[in-house]
């Protein structure tokens, strides 16, 4: 009943024997691939644990992309050996390989262009950087918007402090504090002409004289 008696002869190859032109992958190959997969799994976990250990022991900040890159490359290797040997794509018609490879290429385009775009949003206009978008209205928390926006304001402040070590330019100031608006009133100025004021120290405002006007000699921005 187990019909080993095939109408035509079987020829043996390096990986097992052929049957009707189908390659039968040998048990040794399957077990080797399984061992490799388990090894790479432990390697992924180990790499992350090592990374955490390094960061904690030597007090260094390892950029996130290192973690992602290592994890993804090990996962890619595992995928390749699963596809080639467990799914037998190696012994299969090349058309199936093309189908799969072009699918992966599509995914790479999808992911690649999205990440490229998102990663470079802040290049020209800084306020378009992804992680500047904060706040939100707290919709869905069931709170009235007036209350949730107050919470959001406090949250954003602590979020900024939390993120300060990620920021390239230091903690972000609200726009009123960022130097666009002058704090010191300009005495003697009129609508047609602004006169620089030096040496005035007002209570509570210890602004050095050089900061009473911006570099264009103009008054407060509107």
């Amino acid at each position, binding site marked *: 009943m187990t019909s080993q008696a095939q109408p035509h002869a079987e020829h043996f190859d390096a990986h097992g024997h052929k049957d009707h032109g189908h390659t039968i992958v040998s048990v040794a190959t*399957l077990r080797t691939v399984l061992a490799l997969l388990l090894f790479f799994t432990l390697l992924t976990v180990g790499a992350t644990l090592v990374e955490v250990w390094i960061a904690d022991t030597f007090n260094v900040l390892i950029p996130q992309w290192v973690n992602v890159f290592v994890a993804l490359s090990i996962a890619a290797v595992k995928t390749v050996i699963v596809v080639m040997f467990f799914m037998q794509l190696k012994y299969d018609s090349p058309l199936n390989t093309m189908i*799969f490879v072009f699918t992966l290429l599509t995914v790479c385009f999808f992911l690649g262009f999205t990440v490229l775009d998102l990663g470079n949003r802040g290049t020209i206009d800084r306020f378009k950087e992804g992680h500047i978008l*904060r706040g*939100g209205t707290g919709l869905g928390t069931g709170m009235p918007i007036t209350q949730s926006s107050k919470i959001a304001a406090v949250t954003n402040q602590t979020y900024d402090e939390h993120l300060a070590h990620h920021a390239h330019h230091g903690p972000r100031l609200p726009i009123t504090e960022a130097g666009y608006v002058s704090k010191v009133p300009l005495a003697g100025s009129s609508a047609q002409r602004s006169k620089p004021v030096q040496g005035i120290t007002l209570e509570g405002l210890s602004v050095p004289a050089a900061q009473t006007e911006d570099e264009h000699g103009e008054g407060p921005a509107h």
Partner: protein
Amino acid sequence: MATIDLGKHGAHGSAPVNDDRPYHERYQAAHHFVDREHEFDAVKMGVWLFLSTEVLLFSGMFVAYAIFRMMYPDAFLSGSAHLDYRWGLLNTVVLLLSSYTVAAAVRHAQTGNQKWLQINIILTFIAGLIFLTIKGVFEYYKKYSEGLLPGKFYSYPYAENVPYEPLWWGIYWGATGIHASHVIVGMGLFAWLYVRSRKRHFGPGHYNAVEGVGLYWHIVDIVWIFLFPMLYLIH
């Protein structure tokens, strides 16, 4: 079933009227194929095309993951800290073993070893069951009872000021949920395969279904291979 002499389409020549051979020996390819080989190649290509659509489905989740991880890295960091990587590691090992058993099942179908074919199908089914149990009991139920749910259902009582964490939970539940539903479907397919293998439907000349379901299960495993480090090993 009685065989029909299809003339030049008969795989092994004209069959006797009372055919007591097992199904996989009597099986004749659908008449629009030249022979069983042709049908097998066509079935395989069809499955690979379907797997392409599955890969693209999961790629949608992965791109969503990438977008939100880039925009809110801290939310992902703190959210991932709630996940125990050891359960994820155990699930990964279980799925890798199931990939091995399914490849072994295909091999046993190819060599006509009916007993071990059935055993491996059952083992794969059990591996899927273990995966779902670990996921459901030790991960999903725990997260649900702590309120770590996606989006507007988020109600974790000890939430720190990490503003977008419900987004992370949306990604987590969405990605693992879609993957788990694929595992459930796969288990249904293996149950179907087991019933058919008991009826001796599969053998060296005909094992299309075993091959096809095996390919599907490997894609499910590959998706988890990517999900595990992306969700559990964020540091």
